[in-house]
C-alpha cells in the first residue's frame, strides 16, 4: 500500500472501468503465452539460478559452520584456535561471494525481465495501432491505455518480485530442508510434520487478508471518487448551500474506510503473530526432541544449535512467498488480458495480408522518390458504386449510393446530422469496409490499395485538428525525418501559417504540450493544413470547421482552404451554405442517399430541398 499508488489505482480503475467483476486467473494459458519469451532467455535464467544458489549459500551455511565450530572446536576442548580461524575465513569468503552473486543475480534477472516486458509493450502498442477504426469505436481508449501501461506493469512486477522471490526463497527453503536431513534425519522428519500445518494456515490467512485488503481498497476508491467529484463541483455545492449535507456523506465514507482499515490491521497483526507463535512452537519442539536426543547422546549439541537456527530461518521465506500470491494473481490476469488484445485481428486488412501473404505492405521501405512518382500518377477520380453500409446490422446508414467524382472536381456535401456525410468520408478513407458495392480511386478498388498508400493519397482535414506533443515542425511532418525542414516550412508559407509560427518564441521548434494547447483553435487548424500540404494528397476531404474563430483567423483559414484545394479533387462537408456556393457540384444528402446534385444555380432552378434551404437562409439574414 504505497501512498501515491492509491491515487494511481483509483485513476486507473476509473479509466478502465475495472471495477467490473474480477477475472479468474488462468494460469496455464497465461504462462504458455509467456513461455515463448522465456525460452529466448533460457541461458539467462540458468545464469540467474546459478547466481541465486551461490548468493544464498553463506546465509545457509552459517548455522552449519557454527555447528562445526561448536562441535569440533569449542566443545571438543582441543583449544584449536587455528581451526576456528579457518572457519571464520571460509565464512568471510562465502559472504563476499554471496554479496557479489546476489548483486549479479538481481541485475541479471531484472535485465531479462525488462527486456521481455519492453518487447511485449512495443508489440502490444504496435498491434493496437494496426487495428481498424471499428476497433477503436468498440474499445474505450481508457481500457487500451490500461492494457499498455498498467497491465504490462503488473507483468513487470512478476519479474521484479514474484520470480525473484520464487528463485531466492524457494531455493532457500529447499536448501534448508536438505540441510536438516543432512544433519539428522529423524529430527528433520519430525519438523516436516509442521510443514503442511504452516502452509495451510498461511494460505487460509492470505485469502482472508486478500478480502479485507480488497474491501479497504474499494472503500478507499469510493472515498477518493467522492472527494474528487465534490472538489470539482464545490462551487455548485456552495451555491446550493449544501456543505453540511456533503460533509455528512463524506464522514460516512471516511468512517467506512476507517473501519475497513481497522479490520485490515487486526488481520495483519493476528496473522503475523500466529506465524510467529508457530515458529516459536516449532523451536520449542525441536529443543525438546533434540534435547532428549542429546541426552541420549544420539545428537551432538552443535547439530541442535544448527537445527534451531534453521527452523528460525525457515519461516521467513514461507512468509515472503505467500506474500507474492496477490502479485502473481494480478499478473496472471494482466497477461491474459494482454493476450486477448494480441489475439484480435483488424477488420480492415490489406489484400495481401488478408490472403495470408506474410509480405508487409512495401510502403514503409519505399523510397520517397518512388512514392512521389506514385502520387503524381494518381489523378483523383473517385467512384462510389452502389454502396451500402451500416455500423450495426439492421441500421443502414448508406443505401445504394452512387457518386462519381471527376479528377480535380470540387464537391460540396450538405445534409442534416445523421444523413451519412461522415460515413461516406470514413468509407473513402477505408476506416471501414462497405457492406455492398465498391469504392474506386482511379479505377482501383480501395480494398486493393495498401492502406498506408491509400491513407496518404486521401488527405482529411478534421473539424478538431489533432496535434501531438512535440515541436511544431515535427507535427507538420508527422515526425517523419525524411521530410526536410525546408519542405515543411514551405508548406506553412503556402497556407499562410508561417507568420503566425515565426511569431512564437521558439518559432518552428516551439514545443506543444498535450493536444497543442498553447495554440488557439484557428492556429491549430492552420498547422494541420500545412501538414496536409506536406503529404501532397491527390484527394482532399475537408470536414468544415464550425468552431468560434475570431474573424482574422477565420479569414486566414478560408484563404488556406482555397489554396489547399487547388488542383485537387476536393470534397467539402459544409455546415454553412456560403462556403460551398462556388463548388463545381453540390450534393444534398438525406437518410443515407443523395437526393439532389448540381451547381448552386442548377439546384436553385430545380426548386427542391436546396432551394428551400437557401431561401430560408436568405430571408432570415435579410430581416
Amino acid at each position, binding site marked *: 500500500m504505497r501512498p501515491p499508488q492509491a491515487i494511481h489505482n483509483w485513476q486507473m480503475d476509473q479509466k478502465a472501468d475495472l471495477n467490473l467483476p474480477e477475472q479468474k486467473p488462468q494460469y496455464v494459458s497465461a504462462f504458455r503465452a509467456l513461455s515463448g519469451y522465456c525460452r529466448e532467455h533460457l541461458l539467462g535464467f540458468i545464469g540467474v539460478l546459478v547466481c541465486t544458489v551461490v548468493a544464498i549459500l553463506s546465509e545457509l551455511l552459517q548455522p552449519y559452520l557454527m555447528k562445526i565450530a561448536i562441535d569440533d572446536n569449542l566443545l571438543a576442548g582441543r583449544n584449536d584456535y587455528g581451526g576456528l580461524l579457518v572457519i571464520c575465513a571460509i565464512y568471510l569468503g562465502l559472504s563476499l561471494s554471496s554479496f557479489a552473486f546476489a548483486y549479479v543475480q538481481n541485475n541479471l534477472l*531484472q535485465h531479462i525481465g525488462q527486456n521481455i516486458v519492453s518487447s511485449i509493450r512495443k508489440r502490444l502498442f504496435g498491434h493496437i495501432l494496426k487495428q481498424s477504426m471499428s476497433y477503436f469505436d468498440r474499445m474505450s481508449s481508457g481500457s487500451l491505455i490500461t492494457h499498455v501501461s498498467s497491465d504490462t506493469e503488473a507483468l513487470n512486477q512478476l519479474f521484479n518480485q514474484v520470480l525473484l522471490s520464487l528463485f531466492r526463497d524457494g531455493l532457500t527453503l529447499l536448501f534448508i530442508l536438505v540441510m536438516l536431513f543432512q544433519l539428522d534425519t529423524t529430527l528433520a522428519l519430525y519438523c516436516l510434520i509442521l510443514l503442511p500445518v504452516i502452509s495451510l494456515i498461511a494460505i487460509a490467512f492470505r485469502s482472508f487478508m486478500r478480502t479485507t485488503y480488497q474491501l479497504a481498497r474499494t472503500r478507499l476508491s469510493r472515498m477518493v471518487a467522492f472527494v474528487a467529484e465534490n472538489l470539482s463541483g464545490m462551487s455548485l455545492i456552495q451555491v446550493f448551500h449544501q456543505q453540511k449535507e456533503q460533509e455528512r456523506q463524506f464522514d460516512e465514507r471516511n468512517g467506512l474506510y476507517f473501519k475497513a482499515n481497522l479490520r485490515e490491521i487486526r488481520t495483519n497483526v493476528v496473522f503475523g503473530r500466529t506465524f510467529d507463535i508457530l515458529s516459536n512452537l516449532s523451536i520449542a519442539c525441536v529443543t525438546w526432541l533434540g534435547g532428549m536426543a542429546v541426552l541420549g547422546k544420539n545428537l551432538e549439541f552443535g547439530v541442535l544449535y544448527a537445527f534451531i537456527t534453521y527452523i528460525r530461518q525457515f519461516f521467513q521465506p514461507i512468509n515472503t512467498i505467500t506474500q507474492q500470491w496477490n502479485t502473481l494473481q494480478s499478473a496472471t490476469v494482466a497477461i491474459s488480458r494482454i493476450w486477448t488484445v494480441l489475439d484480435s485481428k483488424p477488420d480492415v486488412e490489406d489484400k495481401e495480408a488478408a490472403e495470408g501473404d506474410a509480405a508487409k505492405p512495401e510502403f514503409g521501405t519505399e523510397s520517397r522518390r518512388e512514392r512521389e512518382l506514385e502520387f503524381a500518377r494518381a489523378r483523383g477520380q473517385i467512384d462510389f458504386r452502389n454502396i451500402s453500409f451500416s455500423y450495426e446490422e439492421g441500421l443502414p446508414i448508406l443505401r445504394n449510393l452512387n457518386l462519381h467524382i471527376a479528377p480535380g472536381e470540387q464537391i460540396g456535401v450538405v445534409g442534416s446530422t445523421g444523413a451519412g456525410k461522415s460515413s461516406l468520408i470514413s468509407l473513402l478513407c477505408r476506416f471501414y469496409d462497405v457492406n455492398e458495392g465498391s469504392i474506386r480511386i482511379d479505377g482501383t478498388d480501395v480494398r486493393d490499395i495498401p492502406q498506408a498508400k491509400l491513407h496518404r493519397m486521401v488527405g482529411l482535414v478534421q473539424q478538431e485538428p489533432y496535434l501531438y506533443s512535440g515541436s511544431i515542425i515535427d507535427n507538420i511532418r508527422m515526425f517523419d525525418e525524411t521530410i526536410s525542414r525546408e519542405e515543411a516550412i514551405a508548406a506553412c508559407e503556402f497556407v499562410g501559417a508561417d507568420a503566425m509560427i515565426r511569431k512564437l518564441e521558439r518559432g518552428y521548434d516551439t514545443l506543444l504540450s*498535450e493536444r497543442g494547447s498553447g495554440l488557439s483553435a484557428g492556429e491549430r487548424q492552420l498547422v494541420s493544413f500545412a501538414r496536409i500540404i506536406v503529404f501532397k494528397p491527390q484527394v482532399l476531404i475537408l470536414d468544415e470547421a464550425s468552431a468560434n474563430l475570431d474573424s482574422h483567423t477565420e479569414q486566414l483559414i478560408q484563404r488556406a482552404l482555397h489554396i489547399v484545394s487547388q488542383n485537387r479533387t476536393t470534397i467539402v462537408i459544409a455546415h454553412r451554405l456560403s462556403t460551398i456556393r462556388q463548388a463545381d457540384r453540390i450534393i444534398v444528402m438525406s437518410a443515407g442517399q443523395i437526393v439532389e446534385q448540381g451547381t448552386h444555380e442548377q439546384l436553385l432552378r430545380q426548386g427542391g430541398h436546396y432551394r428551400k434551404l437557401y431561401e430560408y437562409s436568405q430571408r432570415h439574414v435579410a430581416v
Partner: protein
Amino acid sequence: MKSQRLLADFFRKTWPIYVLSLSLHLTSNLINVYFPRVLGQFTDKLQAGELTRPLVVDYSLLLLAIGIGTVLFNGGAMYLVMYVGRKFEFVVRGRLFRHFTQMSERFYAGNGVGKLLSYFMNDVTAVRESISMGFNSTANATMLLLAAVAMMIVGGIPYYLIAASVLPLLLIPAIVVYLGPAIRNRSLEVQEALGTMTETAEEQFGGVRVTKKFAAEEVMEQRFGRTVDRIRAKQLRLVRVSSCFQALVPFLGTIALIAALAFGGYLTIAGTITLGSFVALTLYVRMLMNPLQQIGNVINTIQRARASLERLNELLSQRSDIVEADDAQAVELTNAAIRIDNLTFAYGPSSHPALRNIHLTVRPGQTLGIIGRTGSGKTTLMKLLLRTYDPPPGTIRYGDADVRAIALESLRGGIAYVPQDGFLFSTTIRDNIAFYRREEPLDSVEAAARSAQIYDNIAELPDRFETRLGERGLTLSGGQRQRTSLARGIIKNAPILILDDSVSAVDAVTEQHIIEEIRRERKGRTTIIIAHRISAIRHADMIVVLDGGVITQRGTHAELLKQGGLYAELYAIQEEGNSHASAAGHS
C-alpha cells in the same frame, strides 16, 4: 492566519496510547532477549553434564513461553499505534474535507483537483506512516537493542566483545540513510518514465484517426518505443543501487557474526566466557539485524513526512476570501430589485478587468436576457451576483442591502443557479434534482423534470428516478445533463432564477419548449437568462449585450434588431444556421 499544528494537537490527545505502546514494546523485548540467554544456559548445563530429562522439558516450555509472551506484547504494542495512525488519518481527512467546503472559488481556481487530492491522499498517508509504522519500528528496534545489550552485560559477556560484534550492525541504519534517498530518486525516475509512456499511449489512442490518415503508424511506434526503452534504462539504473543495497545489509550482518565468531570463539577457548554465552552472543547478533535495517527505513520515511506535514499545515491555515460579515442579515429576495451600480471587476490586481462600468437594474419580476461571445464577462457577472467572488463594496445590491452584507445562506437560498456545464453528482437522478432539499417528495421531483423536458428520458431508464449516475452508473448525454441540472434549479422554486447558458447543448425544438415552460412558471418572478443563442432570450423584458466586459447594447429584441450592431449580426448568423438545420431535417 492562524498557524496550524496538526501533529502537536494530535499528540496532545493521544500521548497516553503512545506511552502504553512504548512500554509494551519494552516488555516484549525484555522477554524476547531471554531467548538466547535461556538457550545459552541450556548449552552450559549440557556442557557441564547437568542436563536431565525434566530440565529439557522445562527449557522447551520456557522457550515457548518466551516466544508467546514476546509475540503477544509486541502484537498489542503494534496494534495500538497502528490504530492511532488510522485514527489520525480519519480525523485529518475529515478536517481537510471541511476545509475544502469552506474555501471559495478563488482557491479552486489556483489549486487543481489533482493537487488537492494529493494533499488528501499522499500527504496524509505519509504522515500517518511515519507516526505509526515509523514509531513501531523505532520503538521496537531501540528497545530490542537496549534490552539485548543489557542482557549480554548481565549474562557476563565482556563489553569489548559486545562492542566488537554489535558495531558492524550499527552501520546498517547508516547505510540505509545513505542509500535510501538515491534509491527513492531513481524509483521516482522510473515512475516518471512510466507516466510519460502512459501519456504517449493516451495521445496515440486519442489521435489514432490522424495517425492512420497519415499512415504514420511506424513513426508513432518508434516514438512509443523510445519511451519504453527509457523505462527499461531507468529501471535497470534503479536495480543497480537497490540490489547493491539489498546485498549489503546481510553482508554487514555476516561481518558482525564473523567478529563474534572469531573474537567470541577465542574468548571461549581462553575460558573467559562460557560456551553458553558464546551461543547467546551469536543469537543476539542475528536478532538485531532486521530491526536495525528498519530504523534506517524509518529515518527516510520521517524526512518525507516532514515535508508533507508542512504542506498540510500550510493548507489548513489558508482562509477563504469570501467571509460572511459579523452583522450579516438574512434578506428576503422575493420583492428585491437587483441593482448593479458602476461595477468594475478584475480577478487579480494585475489582470485585465473582466467587467467595466456595469450599470444595470432588474426590477422584481422582470426577465433579463444577457448575450455575448465567450469571454465577454457574462458568467463573471453571475458569480458576483452569487458572491462566489466578492464585488467591490456597494456595487451590487439586492433591495437596499449590499450583497456583501447579506447572510450567505439567505443569499444563496434565494437564488437558483443553473450552470452551463450541467455538473451532476454520482448519486441517483432523484438526489441530483432534489439537491437543495433531499427530502423533497417524488411528485415535485417529477414535476420539475417535466418542466425541464427531461421527464420522458428519465421515465425510460430502468430505475427511473432512482437510476444512479456516473462512476459505475449511467452516463447521460450533454443535453440530458443540462436538462437534469435545469430541473435541479427549477425545483428550488427560488425568488430569483439564473440560467447561465443552461440549454446550449439542447436541440432547438426542446429549447423552445423549455423557454416557454420557464416563461410560464416564472411569471412575475425575477429570471436572468444568459445565452449564446438569441432564440433563448428574445422574449426577455430587457436584453443586454456584453462585449469585452462592457454593456454595448440594451433594449428589447425588436429595439436591438433595429439598432443593428453585434446583436443584429448574431441574429443574422444564427437564423441562417437554424433554418438550414430544420430545412435539411425535413427533407
